[in-house]
């Protein structure tokens, strides 16, 4: 790139990054603010100020860890994180068990109707959760799963399986068919070829599905919000708005900390697997 192109690139890319990242940067600033500093509208919201609203060189002495401590010691936040991990982990396992065989079959074995089935799977993804959750909540009650993490583990695959099948279909299509055919020629059964040849090669793709299915679970709000009523059984997405926003009282610093803590590791994972995701996504039904 020429010097001019480099400058133009930064002129476009940096403002976008600032706008997209700003809420998280500001959450980071807010989470360490003291109550008096936060509540005074004359104080700069970007810095940690003394009582008169002045900024000092040792600004960290005017910040506090109290609200982060509050989040971990006085609320169920650690439990919510754990619950989220449990639900996400269990759902990912169920999703892989169902979606891997289906994705493989649609990519390789189904032939003509594989395309149609791919579109059909996508249509399932379009059914709004607000529609499904009335009957589903009844089902959950009937099964005695109300107020239990099992309710979420049962219901979440309803949206992770179509998505994962779609992605895995794409990954399996990108694996050269010759690899399997060679194994079949050597006398391996189709299932053996699947296990020994296809699975190892598609491991990065499967990991990608794991990450995105997990993050769909962390994101889910409406089922977690309605199926679970006791605080100890909530996931982060339902627990934070339920317990940390009480009427008009907002624990802003704790809320911001609660937001940032899951977002950062997820974003790092996304970044690491982005290229794989792109590959699987475009390989899906459009190739």
């Amino acid at each position, binding site marked *: 790139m020429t010097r001019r192109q480099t400058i133009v690139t930064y002129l476009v890319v940096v403002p*976008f990054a600032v706008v997209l990242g700003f809420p998280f940067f500001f959450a980071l600033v807010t989470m360490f603010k003291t109550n008096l500093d936060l509540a005074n509208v004359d104080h700069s919201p970007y810095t940690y100020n003394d009582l008169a609203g002045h900024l000092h060189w040792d600004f960290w002495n005017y910040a506090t860890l109290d609200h982060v401590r509050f989040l971990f010691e006085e609320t169920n936040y650690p439990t919510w994180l754990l619950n989220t991990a449990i639900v996400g982990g269990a759902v990912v396992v169920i999703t892989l068990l169902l979606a891997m065989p289906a994705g493989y079959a649609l990519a390789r074995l189904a032939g003509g109707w594989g395309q149609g089935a791919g579109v059909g799977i996508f249509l399932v993804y*379009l059914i*709004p959760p607000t529609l499904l959750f*009335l009957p589903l909540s009844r089902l959950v009650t009937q099964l005695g799963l109300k107020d239990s993490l099992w309710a979420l583990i049962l219901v979440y695959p309803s949206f992770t399986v179509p998505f994962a099948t779609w992605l895995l279909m794409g990954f399996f299509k990108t694996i050269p068919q010759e690899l399997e055919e060679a194994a079949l020629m050597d006398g391996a059964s189709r299932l053996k070829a699947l296990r020994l040849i296809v699975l190892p090669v598609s491991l990065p793709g499967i990991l990608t599905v794991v990450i995105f299915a997990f993050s769909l679970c962390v994101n889910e709000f409406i089922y977690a919000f309605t199926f679970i009523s006791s605080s100890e059984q909530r996931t982060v997405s339902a627990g934070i708005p339920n317990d940390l*926003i009480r009427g008009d009282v907002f624990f802003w610093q704790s809320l911001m900390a609660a937001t940032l803590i899951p977002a950062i590791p997820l974003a790092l994972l996304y970044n690491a697997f982005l290229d794989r995701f792109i590959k699987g996504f475009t390989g899906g039904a459009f190739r």
Partner: protein
Amino acid sequence: MEAHAARSRPVGRRWRHALESRRVLAPLLIAPAVVFMALVVGVPFVWAIYLSFTDAIGGSLSGHWVGFDNFTSAWHDENFRRALRNTLIFTLASQAIVVVGAAVLSNFLVRDFRGKWIIRFLVVLPWAAPVVLSTITWLWLLDSLYSVLNWTLARLHVDHALVWLFDATHIEEGAQVPLQWLGRPNLALVAITLVHAWRILPFAVVIFIAGRASIPNEVEDASRIDGATGFKKLWYVDLPLQLPIALVAVLFGIVFTAVDFAVVYILTHGGPFNSTQVLPTWAYAVGIDSGSLGAGAAISLFLFPLLVLVTILMLFFARRAQVS
């Protein structure tokens, strides 16, 4: 023992032989997923459709058959109409911003430059963060009293200009400094649209980058030989080739925005005065908060045919664009 083993072998072989055949293996591998989906999506879906034709209320999941009453009364309800209008506004306006933003950003993000990693990390953040949590961050940024956005606008001395602009364009008449982003009906529409655009943009950028990656290198070489550069190349070469994948990004964006419940619920609860309700939140308010299950199901159902139509159109165009 031996005789038994000998007898059972052909059976085993026949089984194994059957597993080798595509006609047997394919349905066998797809079946578990299909059965599961039929149970947790198919049955509730049909049930919900049934409910929308009944007067079911509260915890009971059945009621008297009322035909299309729920649909017609929803259609004549002012709140429903506004929710439908808002859903369309949020979806179309945010996707328009997203498509333009993603087309520009993706073109630059594929280049090599120093600090690309951190830029990419920041760009991906809104998509990676759980929706509910990032929306709570926006609730803080747009707070009626402590809004950092208003504070910054005031320090840059553009707050009054912005108020004048909203007034002059009739977007929000009679607004005052500091702007009540979530407290005034039309400003709240603007704010929610922007939050949707903000959270979908990274996803669209990623899909656009994928689209660029699928353009063969020969095209690049050929257009260079033909002397197509800069804007001309972008318009006549890059954009048409990115069209199919752009449609995919738009399709997903529309679905993500249209069915979203969390953003409106967290930011405004549908208020002020139901002015920002969308179909999912209105269905929730009617079906759950007020307990009219049948009516709530009918409201939710309005969205589905629209989404199916959008999907079919998009898939059709995506495939056609690819063939040509």
